[in-house]
């Protein structure tokens, strides 16, 4: 879904978001409550500038609008794959964005992620996946890497990976699998404003513990994570 349509469906005409390059930034009203919106579009490659610009929007919200909820709009192809970004330390830029979101959470901002188009690997870890909860549209796509690249790195035949992706939630890119594994709390269908309202109501401040491993176990998509963590924590 293109971002303008997404905002219309979420907020009718109660939104003011600008698009500069691949950066989305602005605010919107839901039930008289203002939310900060920040994210990317155009399957953005997250380079040092784009990571920093998103961090800026989060920091400005913490500074100027204490407690205001933040909705992260995710559409990324992952980190930008350039030597210049590595030379400048892109992992620190992306971590900075993640730390800004963490600070917002600690200071009582509810932070929700919404994958409305595509989410890949690194660009997703420090945005949607670091929110209190991440949601997705049913037609969105979440994956770590495309199958040809995955086949190259793992040295496993692409046809075999493709066959596994048909049946195994661990390999398949569909958002339903991320729900089954607990990485995505739920898919938003139908009236998106109703979904957002429910998600905000479901999100407490200060944030509770990370429930994704437990969700993965209950939903059957990730059988071991919660149990293993528990055994190490309590041994």
């Amino acid at each position: 879904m293109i971002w303008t349509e997404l905002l219309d469906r979420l907020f009718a005409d109660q939104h003011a978001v600008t698009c500069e390059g691949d950066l989305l930034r602005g605010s919107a009203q839901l039930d008289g409550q203002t939310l900060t919106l920040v994210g990317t579009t155009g399957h953005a490659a997250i380079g040092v500038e784009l990571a920093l610009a998103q961090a800026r929007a989060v920091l400005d919200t913490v500074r100027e609008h204490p407690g205001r909820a933040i909705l992260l709009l995710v559409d990324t192809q992952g980190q930008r794959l350039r030597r210049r970004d590595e030379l400048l330390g892109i992992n620190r830029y992306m971590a900075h964005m993640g730390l800004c979101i963490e600070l917002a959470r600690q200071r009582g901002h509810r932070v929700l992620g919404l994958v409305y188009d595509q989410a890949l690997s690194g660009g997703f870890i420090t945005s949607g996946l670091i929110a209190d909860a991440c949601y997705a549209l049913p037609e969105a796509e979440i994956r770590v890497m495309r199958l040809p690249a995955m086949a190259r790195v793992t040295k496993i035949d692409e046809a075999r990976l493709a066959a596994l992706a048909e049946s195994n939630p661990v390999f398949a890119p569909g958002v339903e699998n991320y729900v089954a594994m607990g990485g995505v709390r739920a898919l938003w269908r139908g009236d998106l404003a109703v979904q957002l309202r429910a998600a905000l109501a479901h999100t407490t401040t200060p944030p509770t513990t990370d429930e994704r491993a437990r969700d993965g176990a209950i939903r059957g998509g990730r059988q071991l994570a919660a149990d293993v963590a528990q055994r190490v924590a309590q041994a």
Partner: protein
Amino acid sequence: MSVAAKLAVSFAESTARERVARLLDAGSFTEILGPSARMMSPHLAQLGVPASFDDGVVVGEGLLHGQPVLIAAQEGEFMGGGVGEVHGAKLVGLFQRALRTRPAAVLVLAESGGVRLHEANAGLIAVSEVMRALLATRAAGIPTLMLIGGANGCFGGMGLVARCADQVVMSDAARLAMSGPEVIESSNGVEEFDAKDRALVWRTTGGKHRYLMGDCDVLVEDDVAAFREAALSLLGQPRALTLEGLEREHAMLAARIADFGDCGDAVDIWRKLGIQDAARIVDLDATQIRALKPRAEKGAQP
């Protein structure tokens, strides 16, 4: 040469268990969910890939100069230290344990290519959970230290986790980055990043560059004892996440792009940092690099 130098034990050439045993006080380490527990990846068999009894990570507790610490060490020899479901959950559990036992620090001997691609989606979520668990530990005022000195470096999601910790220690032989050079080369060509040019790879992602840029706090020789000393020196220094701290970090990162964004090579950056004879950096050892640091601008840690 001093006696200590003669007795140096290479961190890079040690296994994860050897690193832990030598880093902590002798005989003090107790492993949790060790190999005898056979807590293995449930996803590798269907790929025909051998699993490991510890899923490539050692976790447990011990003493560092008499002070209780929790420690994790990733084994680079198993799947490049990649984070899968079980591997990630062991790290998460260790951080959760820290909230209960309140150790002097949680040490992570990171050696990882990031998400274990063989467990794709589960690995991606696991890395995210590790990051959240580390941040919860940090928020509780328990220092989180990343010690990076393995031959495989610290990349991808673990490169992000590293920069979320309180402190980062690297050896001059270590690497810390986001995307591996092979991934960049295969996406954008050998002209963009020649992954076989080892000198270029080390200049771009190696410990010396990261130290001079302020992305690692302490630079040490490739010696387990040096990592131990560095970890000891960093105990009891938790860094709270504050708006002021993150604003300083933001300003530093913005200035970095303005100052060095047009540099084509690390040597150009070192020269701009005011280091004379920057091309000679590659020949210097960690002690000599540390002596250069006052001349280079120190990056603020958030």
